[in-house]
């Protein structure tokens, strides 16, 4: 990685921390507030690509592990990784990587806006939701003992919110690509 890549990775991790510090934002049309931080892996993949995106998520988790309260709600420390939902955090890294891979491959700068949006959305859904759930549920199954099937099914309540986040990440990814393209520069 070049110095610029390292700076981009660090700045993106810093943005994620700020998104965890600010109060949750409410969307206009639904009453549920969303913590912008959980958009992280999808945004990282869509904006700075696979390698740098995954690196910035890894950096964020490193900061959590060494005892900085950088997750939303001031959470941090090794205790976060000991809980039953830690798999979702590890999934952030791989999720960002997969999102980035798909976005890098299928989004082109000269493309029509609709195509770009569709590619970003697909990337965010596959990387940010599918891959993330894979890791999250595997860990949850290990941690939750014999009731893992029921616990896994219950986590489906987060699916609508996550689909909404994927849509936001896709729109933001396209807007940043139009304003300050970084996705296709080699990491």
């Amino acid at each position: 990685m070049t110095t610029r890549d390292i700076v981009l990775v660090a700045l993106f991790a810093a943005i994620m921390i700020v998104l965890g510090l600010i109060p949750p934002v409410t969307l206009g049309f639904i009453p549920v507030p969303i913590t912008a931080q959980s958009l992280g892996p999808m945004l990282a993949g869509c904006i700075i690509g696979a390698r740098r995106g995954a690196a910035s998520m890894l950096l964020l988790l490193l900061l959590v592990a060494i005892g900085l309260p950088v997750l939303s709600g001031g959470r941090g420390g090794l205790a976060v990784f000991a809980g039953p939902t830690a798999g979702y955090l590890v999934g952030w890294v791989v999720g960002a990587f997969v999102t980035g891979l798909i976005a890098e491959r299928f989004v082109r700068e000269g493309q029509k806006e609709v195509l770009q949006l569709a590619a970003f959305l697909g990337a965010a859904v596959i990387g940010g939701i599918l891959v993330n759930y894979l890791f999250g549920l595997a860990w949850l199954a290990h941690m939750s003992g014999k009731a893992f099937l029921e616990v896994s099914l219950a986590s489906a309540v987060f699916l609508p919110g996550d689909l909404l986040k994927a849509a936001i990440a896709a729109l933001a990814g396209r807007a940043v690509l139009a304003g300050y393209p970084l996705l296709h520069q080699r990491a």
Partner: protein
Amino acid sequence: MLNGLDIEGRTLLHRLPVRGKLVLLFTAAILLFLTSDLRILGPALAAAAVLFLSTGIGLREAFRRVRFVLFTVALVAAANYVFVSPREAAAVLCRLSALVLLAAAVTATTGIPAFMDEVARLLAPFERLGLVRAADVSLAVGLVIRFVPEILARYGEISAAHKARGLPVRPLTLLTPLVILTLKDADTIAMAIDARGFRRH
């Protein structure tokens, strides 16, 4: 702005080397999953709680730190209570809570610099393979801590600009300017780092 979660003190846990604490934590994690016997898991939970509180953290702060993780543990235990058996629920509750408290105890007794030193040592084998440079990781950590206050101030400006125009702060109208304004600085920062020769080979 960003303060670590370590509590100052001179307890046994404070004086133990970081690697020793991590090895103990991993061993405890493995052992806790090997048994479902409440006669072992119950005392283990009590011991973990005592250990966490013995770091001098204070009951309020201790609870504030682990409440969210313990809440998810309670949910998982509740599912076991409803779908499996009260015994299994108690085992899951004791096992996971003990693990969470032990991990919190390690965090409370280890300062950021000590942790970073250990991270650098753990990265050494990867560095020899040419995969990552420990100095780069330290640089990135430093950059994050340096830039969080600045980005937070930028968020304040963007939300003030929203207010001035009578707009509500929405995720999209917030994220795009925040990301673009922040990442645009990357070139200047990278040049400043290279000009100072931080990454000389």
